[in-house]
């Protein structure tokens, strides 16, 4: 009986280490996924933002790419961010750190509107 107890006692740190290893590996995978998810693309095509409404976690960087053969801009309704004019294939990125709803539009073609919801 005593022996078994010792084995268990000795085994405990090993198991604990193994559990730690597995969980930290999972932790690594999770943070890698988060890193991937923290860069999100919005396409500007045919005089519209796609997707027009985007929901992301705080810390996410959103990159807009102009796929039209006409220049556009990305300008926040509340002046939180403002791109320079984007010619065809040019990009603009902004990192959203604070939760909230950020409406934006193209200041050249103001009928083009979009929204980023940061959770």
């Amino acid at each position, binding site marked *: 009986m005593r022996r078994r107890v010792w084995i268990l006692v000795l085994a405990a740190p090993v198991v604990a280490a193994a559990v730690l290893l597995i969980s930290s590996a999972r932790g690594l995978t999770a943070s890698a996924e988060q890193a991937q998810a923290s860069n999100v693309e919005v396409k500007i095509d*045919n005089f519209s933002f796609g997707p027009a409404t985007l929901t992301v976690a705080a810390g996410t960087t959103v990159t807009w790419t102009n796929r039209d053969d*006409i220049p556009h801009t990305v300008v926040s*309704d509340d002046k939180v961010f403002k791109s*320079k*004019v984007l010619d065809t294939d040019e990009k603009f990125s902004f990192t959203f750190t604070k939760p909230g709803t950020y409406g*934006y539009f193209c200041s*050249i073609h*103001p*009928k083009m509107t979009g929204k980023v919801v940061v959770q």
Partner: protein
Amino acid sequence: MTKKVKDQILHDHNQDGIDRRGFLKCMAWAGTGALCVMQGGVLKSYSLSRLSDLGANAAAAGELSFVQISDSHMGFNKPANPDVAGTLKAAVDKINGLSNAPEFLLHTGDISHLSKPEEFDTVDQILKATGKDVFFVPGEHDVLNDDGVQFRERYGKGAKGAGWYSFEKKGVHFIGLVNVMNLKAGGLGALGHEQLEWLEDDVKRLKHSTPIVVFAHIPLWTVYPEWGWGTDDSAQALAYLKKFGSVTVLNGHIHQTMQKVEGNVTFHTAASTAFPQPQPGKADSPRPMKVPAEQLRSVLGITDVNYVRGQQALAVVDSSLA
């Protein structure tokens, strides 16, 4: 013996100077070349090919002649027109070839595509070949990144606010307005309070009989709001012009000719010298329209405007670059 002229509008049921069927016909000709003249409150329209039927060139008989060009988009190089400098030069050739030489030019904006100094330089260089003064108002492509500072330095010396101004030529009062600044999300073109106040004051002293020509980039009438083709506060501007017997509004922005008459006001949009855009709602967006290369010049153009003293409206003639 009077020659019978077809397509002359004679029915004016509402006594508003507009014959609907004839007016639509006039619109259908726009782009291929049409002459619309309002005489004694009746709008008459003739296709350009029929001008000789009139016996005399009505448009050429004016006391003041000027040309409107628009939307040269210098710097644009996409498939819809890889040579916008070439088509602007063709417009200049057309202007220089007019039998009735214009006194000056109006450019209703989108001079450049991306507000780059070299784009403005190229346009200035090409237009120099007309030997005429050019009066500009900015399009949204001319005020990118710097809120129009460069535009005002180049073209707005002596102008007010964002670049609005007025001047007189042979008894006609010209008003250049700016409706491409401080646009709001979801909105249309905008004149803004300060400019409207200036306009009210500018026209206050004028006699009601003074012919008025207003020019601005985005249409001052609602052409197609879904594509932003209109100006949110244009009704206020037009209210200040109500008292005048003859008001002609010249716009660009929509890259196609269109005309509308509302009471004493004639609205007209000019073709682009760079590329055409689709008719309102005829495409899923107003993106540049690619037409076969050999047809391109037939959908680009210039607008020739003539004022004949005593006539109620100015004669507006669109001609393509083909």
